[in-house]
């Protein structure tokens, strides 16, 4: 066992890429003539070095880049825009996230209140699932299992009758 533990530690350290998480969150907003993008897999798990693609009308590529170590990326607001912008973040094989900035939002400079509202929206997206939701999920699983059991029993009773 003493020989196995250092081996396991070595294997874990060798694997330097971040394991694929399941919830890709992309969030973007306009501030001071720039579009700011933040990607994460939930709270405290930034989506590092992920490809960002920005597309406009008819999926025409407008801009592309890569997130930094904090999962952030920002770029100057493209000129002559006449449509919503879709920001797509590729967070590894099978992991994709989208965020749409509406045409109206692109044209207007946001007020501090608006930015605060956006940040609150971002935090709610990144929040871990609540205990109530987890409990509801487990209760639903048991509910479904007991319902399936009850149906099976009824069917068997019907056959025996």
């Amino acid at each position, binding site marked *: 066992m003493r020989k196995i533990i250092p081996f396991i530690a070595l294997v874990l350290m060798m694997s330097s890429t971040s394991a694929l998480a*399941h919830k890709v969150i992309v969030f973007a907003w306009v501030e001071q003539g720039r579009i700011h993008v933040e990607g994460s897999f939930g709270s405290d798990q930034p989506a590092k070095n992920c490809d960002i693609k920005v597309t406009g009308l008819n999926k025409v590529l407008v801009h592309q880049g890569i997130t930094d170590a904090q999962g952030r990326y920002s770029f100057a607001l493209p000129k002559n825009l006449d449509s919503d912008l879709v920001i797509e973040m590729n967070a590894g094989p099978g992991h994709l996230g989208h965020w749409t900035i509406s045409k109206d939002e692109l044209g207007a400079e946001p007020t501090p209140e608006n930015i605060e509202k956006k940040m609150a929206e971002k935090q709610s997206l990144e929040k871990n699932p609540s205990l109530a*939701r987890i409990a509801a999920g487990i209760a639903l699983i048991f509910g479904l299992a007991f319902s399936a059991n009850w149906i099976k029993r009824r069917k068997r009773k019907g056959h025996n009758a």
Partner: protein
Amino acid sequence: MHISEGVLSGQVLAAGAVITIVGTTIGLKKIDYDQMVHVAILASAFFVASLIHVNIGPVSVHLILNGVVGLLLGMAAFPAILTALLLQSLLFQYGGLTALGVNTVIMALPAVLVHYLFLPLVGKSERLTFIAGFSAGFFSIVFSCLLLGMALWFTDQNFLKTCIAIISAHLPVMVIEGIITGFCVTFLLKVYPEILPNINKVGK
């Protein structure tokens, strides 16, 4: 391991849905009354496991537990994993409803496979039981990675490159799941052997 919405082609999504329907139907038919509570317990464990993130140095991993679910449930892993994934999608926005079929196949098919590969070793001796558990946990993730790579390959991505990226990202999960499944099966064999299907109890 959960594929997001909008990644896979329509054909791959449809194929995943069909395999899931077939697997779930067979699984539901195979479940016994007495087994239903075990199915619910393991589906709940699978449902919650994805929320447990472990940070190991630069790596952030989350548990999947399809190995232990498959080893203990066999074909019944299909309905258990489908239910858990559906609720994860609805309650936590993990994966997506359109990718539910493919995600179920990616996690449930390896679970069924490890059941048939490693269950015969469970109960032979304590050491073999641990090895069987470890292998079930480890290889369920390896097979899941290969299936994920295949799903992406059919949607125009390089199979080898994608598989290497997925497997290297999941190496820590394979080892951790192997250890957890190994200890879990060894423990269950001692305290609650009834949950293990068709086994020879150690010491008998």
